């Protein structure tokens, strides 16, 4: 489900007014990204399911206090998600590896393709683990949750420039780890031209 920022703002206003269906639309839009972010952070699918749900329940509680003031709703929501994950990790003191996560392929792959896919997934997981925690989180917010640098900055409570710096270094490290050649044109573009 793709909706633009303006539509999100309208839904947020309606949801703040107590419209459950508007909140349902926000859920539909953000659940996938929130789940992916949480799953990447906690590893275990069952925990990810519970925590992603908890994020939305907490969002319901906190929504009346949310004021846009230039803060994108996505950034605000992921800040909640981040806090939920932090609380979870603190209390459980248990860090499942990403390998525990159930794999879902498209279903069309044969055994050979599946083996290649699994190898690639393992390589990516390994490369992600080698990043610093902050770099990894910046990557997760950008590529798994689909947040802009501004939203990721809001979620992590950092400056936007800092997030870009983290992402630059993380991308460089991932390329090295995964043996992906960098095209000079692909290194970066002027801020604001992309999410």
């Amino acid at each position, binding site marked *: 489900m793709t909706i633009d920022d303006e539509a999100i703002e309208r839904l947020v206003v309606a949801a703040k007014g107590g419209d459950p269906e508007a909140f349902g639309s926000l859920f539909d839009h953000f659940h996938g990204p929130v789940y992916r972010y949480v799953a990447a952070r906690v590893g275990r699918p069952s925990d990810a399911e519970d925590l992603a749900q908890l994020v939305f329940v907490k969002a319901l509680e906190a929504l009346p206090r949310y004021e846009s003031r230039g803060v994108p709703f996505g950034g605000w929501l992921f800040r909640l998600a981040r806090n939920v994950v932090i609380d979870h990790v603190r209390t459980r003191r248990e860090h499942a590896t990403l390998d525990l996560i159930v794999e879902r392929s498209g279903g069309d792959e044969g055994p050979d393709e599946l083996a290649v896919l699994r190898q690639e997934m393992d390589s990516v997981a390994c490369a992600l683990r080698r990043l610093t925690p902050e770099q990894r989180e910046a990557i997760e917010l950008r*590529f798994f949750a689909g947040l802009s640098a501004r939203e990721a900055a809001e979620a992590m409570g950092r400056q936007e420039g800092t997030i870009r710096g983290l992402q630059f270094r993380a991308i460089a490290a991932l390329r090295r780890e995964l043996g992906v050649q960098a095209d000079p044109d692909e290194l970066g573009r002027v*801020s604001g031209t992309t999410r």
Partner: protein
Amino acid sequence: MNEDEMQALEPQAGETLERMLARYARVRLDPSPAQARRARAAVMEEAWRRRFELVAASSGVPAASPAAAVAPVGRARRLPFAGWGARRLSGAASAAVLAGVLVGSTAFATSRAGGPFYETRLAVEELTLPSDPASHLEAEIAMVQTRLAEIVEASSRDDERAMTAALAAYEREIATLGATTGEPAARALEAVASHRAVLERVAGGVPAQARGGLERALATGDKVIDRLSAVEVPGSAGSGGAPNGTGTGGNGAGVGTGGNGNANGAGVGTGGNGNANGAGVGTGGNGTGTGGNGTGVGTGGNGTANGAGVGTGGNGTANGAGVGTGGNGTGPGAAATPDPSPTDKPGRTPPPKPTKEPVDQGNKKNATPSPGTGKP
């Protein structure tokens, strides 16, 4: 690239790496459809619960469930003694306005009767029924009353599709209500019985295509009434006096009919001066309904309803979450819709009172119904 350049540019992973990361997210991080469904159901239940708490808090009426919260809409029904012309339309409009205020917004519009998400909304209502038996019954009754309000509202708009959808849902839900056993059966009976007059009124203007549905709903209602009437509960058989006489309603679930109808407990008082205490309906020249748990409907020259109620008439007043319609409609609850209809003047004189006054007021301890003693 130095630090300043890094912070000024949007970092790009490049096509290959982006594809790898996207594949990784899809294969290892995406929620399964079942996980997403489970999470949505739980979150939506919470969202609806909060919505109803909000409505209840603003109206001062306890709302046990989603359905309970929209109950006042369902109570906006027309009774046989009410003027059915301009007032009917304004009342239906009030119900529609209240429905809009209570349940939502543009998003809700799609879940209206006949809308693409109507069945989904019904399913959500079902899902969020409370487990506590007493609250469950009240919520079920409120759901049925909401369907009735949707029928009335669809009728006022001549919306055949909405009417057909609401009638089908109504029929299903009263059939469920018909399975009530034991003491609560009286409460269910009172609710279903009071719907009949509304449906009969609606039948006058129903589109031909929806007539079959309406007849089925009436037939199902009759069966449910028969079934619930057969359930034995103490003090459930009160009946009123003769027309224009003095009727005293039964105790518990009772009906008082006559010049001065009175019913205590869950009752219906009909007549020149209809009074109903508890969860009741008062209809007549001076109709007053006072809800024990805030469920009252007053219709007539001076209609007053306290709690979650609907007051309709020359001077309609509704306290709590209510709708007041009429010459001077006032409702200090969650929603109030004064109707400045020129046909209803402020302080409109009620129809003349019958000469007899009530001679007996039953009480809940006395399970024996008192027959009406008034004369025509």
